[in-house]
């Protein structure tokens, strides 16, 4: 059912590969090499070109190799001082939105997923089918109506306009439901109850540890979704000091393309800004890969 959970590595596993298959498959590896080059190409371009100043960018040198002058620090300095350091604010805003939205959505999803999986309460089936139906409602279709509703309460152009809608994560509920149903045996819960543990204690002490891989996955997925969000903050926010980095860079890009000649200095900031904005998530993904790899299979496998 749920395979390749991170924990599974600790347990004795059925031998995945028979020993007698050390085949190299050279053509396949070469093909894979080409694919890796393709997937890394935009990163390479950004890494190379964020070292250039405006003359280096537009001087007609090799676009996929460094110019004579390599000036990462200068560009970084400019990036964080331009317009009173607005870029640093954007990064902080993105972090705030991703953390608040991610943690909030995860808490709600874990509670609801566990509730749906482990309690037979009134209208359970009906409510769960509503959640499943919500998986099919496109998130962006909600943005304009939510904006209209928030503007009635004066919530637009505040951080809440971005954080509150991020709390809604039906897919997280679905994922947690599947995981709790399969990974938390009823017998263990009943045993805990028989030992006199209350429902909350049973959940926190017994069920939650068992659900940890899925919790990490939902947390990562919803934090990434908030960090990547563009349409929602673009619609909700008009004060550029509240922008997340996605909307901010989009703004700069619009300005830079609008005045082609005068915007040249901005281009090197945008390239550097793109590089800096991807670093936190790339690091998060690499360091946490043990956790998310297992959880991702939950939704796909039944």
């Amino acid at each position, binding site marked *: 059912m749920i395979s390749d959970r991170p924990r599974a590595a600790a347990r004795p596993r059925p031998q995945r590969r028979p020993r007698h298959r050390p085949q190299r498959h050279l053509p396949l590896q070469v093909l894979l090499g080409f694919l890796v080059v393709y997937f890394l190409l*935009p990163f390479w371009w950004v890494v190379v070109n964020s070292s250039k100043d405006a003359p280096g960018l537009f001087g007609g040198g090799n676009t996929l190799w460094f110019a004579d002058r390599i000036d990462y620090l200068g560009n970084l300095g400019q990036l964080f001082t331009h317009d009173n350091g607005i870029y640093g604010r954007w990064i902080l805003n993105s972090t705030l939105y991703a953390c608040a939205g991610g943690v909030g959505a995860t808490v709600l999803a874990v509670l*609801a997923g566990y509730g749906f999986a482990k309690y037979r*309460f009134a209208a359970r089936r009906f409510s769960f089918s*509503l959640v499943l139906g919500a998986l099919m409602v496109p998130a962006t279709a909600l943005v304009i*109506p939510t904006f209209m509703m928030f503007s009635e309460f004066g919530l637009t152009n505040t951080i809440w306009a971005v954080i509150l809608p991020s709390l809604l994560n039906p897919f997280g509920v679905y994922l947690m439901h599947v995981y709790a149903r399969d990974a938390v045996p009823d017998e263990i819960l009943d045993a805990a109850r028989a030992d006199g543990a209350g429902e909350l204690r049973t959940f926190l002490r017994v069920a939650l540890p068992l659900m940890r891989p899925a919790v990490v996955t939902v947390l990562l997925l919803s934090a990434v979704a908030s*960090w990547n969000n563009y349409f929602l903050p673009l619609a909700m926010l008009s004060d550029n000091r509240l922008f997340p980095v996605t909307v901010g860079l989009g703004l700069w890009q619009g300005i830079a393309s609008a005045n082609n000649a005068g915007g040249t200095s901005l281009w090197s900031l945008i390239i550097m800004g793109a590089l800096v904005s991807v670093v936190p998530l790339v690091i998060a993904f690499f360091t946490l890969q043990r956790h998310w790899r297992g959880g991702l299979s939950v939704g796909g496998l039944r």
Partner: protein
Amino acid sequence: MTEKSAPDAQDGTRGPRGKVRLREHVMGWLFVGPFGIVFLALLIAPLAYALYLSLFQKRLIGGTGFVFLDNYVKAFTDPSFLSGSWFVIRFSLVSIPLQIIVALAMALILDAVTSLFTRFSRLMIFLPYAIPTVIGAVMWGFLYSRSFGPLTDLFTLFGATPPDLLGSNLIFYGLVNIVTWQWAGYYMIILYAALQGIDPALYEAARMDGAGKWQVALRIKIPLIAPALFLILVFSLIGTLQFFNEPQILRSLAAGTIGPDFTPNMYAYQQAFALANFNYGSAISFALGGIVFVGVYAFLFFTRKRRSFL
């Protein structure tokens, strides 16, 4: 729902029924409640409000009046909305199969070959998922650009005219490429995880029966990960129909190629925020949401795979 119709409840194992039942109801709702409130406030309420707003129209004379379905009639006869919808449908038909085929091929290779390099490749191929779509579009915009992209260098090297991937002829493929780059790695990881979950004893049995590697891949691996493939298909369909970020970002670079009504979502955004025509914007949003919902639901229904997914 009544107690009797409660599915697979393990009644009778927990002492006096009435008391246990009530406690289950209360506890169940306590766990689901917080999400339920968010669900009502941020999904049901906006949808209801959008539906309500979409039934009104701002007139030059007499303020805002009730027009019933006029906005929808207008939307479905509006060339901007229709051409945008047609674009995202065409785009789905090309880009989704491409993404899934690329992802499946990569997942099968990574499942079949294990080496240090394949482990490294798996991470690198997945990397674009960690990149916000906006930043991805900005990056590819640079690569496509004629002033500082490598395409110009490459093509002039061979004495050919560089293609303008931001021009109206090729923008479609330019966007297909960006979307594939962005999502194929993510889909690959899901499929790879599914492949890793298959019991290797099946391969051994197939080999005993004389099946080759291709047959194992086609007859065993792909059918067994069909639910994961299906999940990806549904999510990519939902995502692609609400296409917004990439064309919106490339708009400033591809002046004249991408209009404000390029996709239905962009059109709704323009109506609501550039023209302050919230009633019509809501109607477009609602119509788009309805199309996606009905389309996906019909798809699920007709492929009769509904149960394996939900």
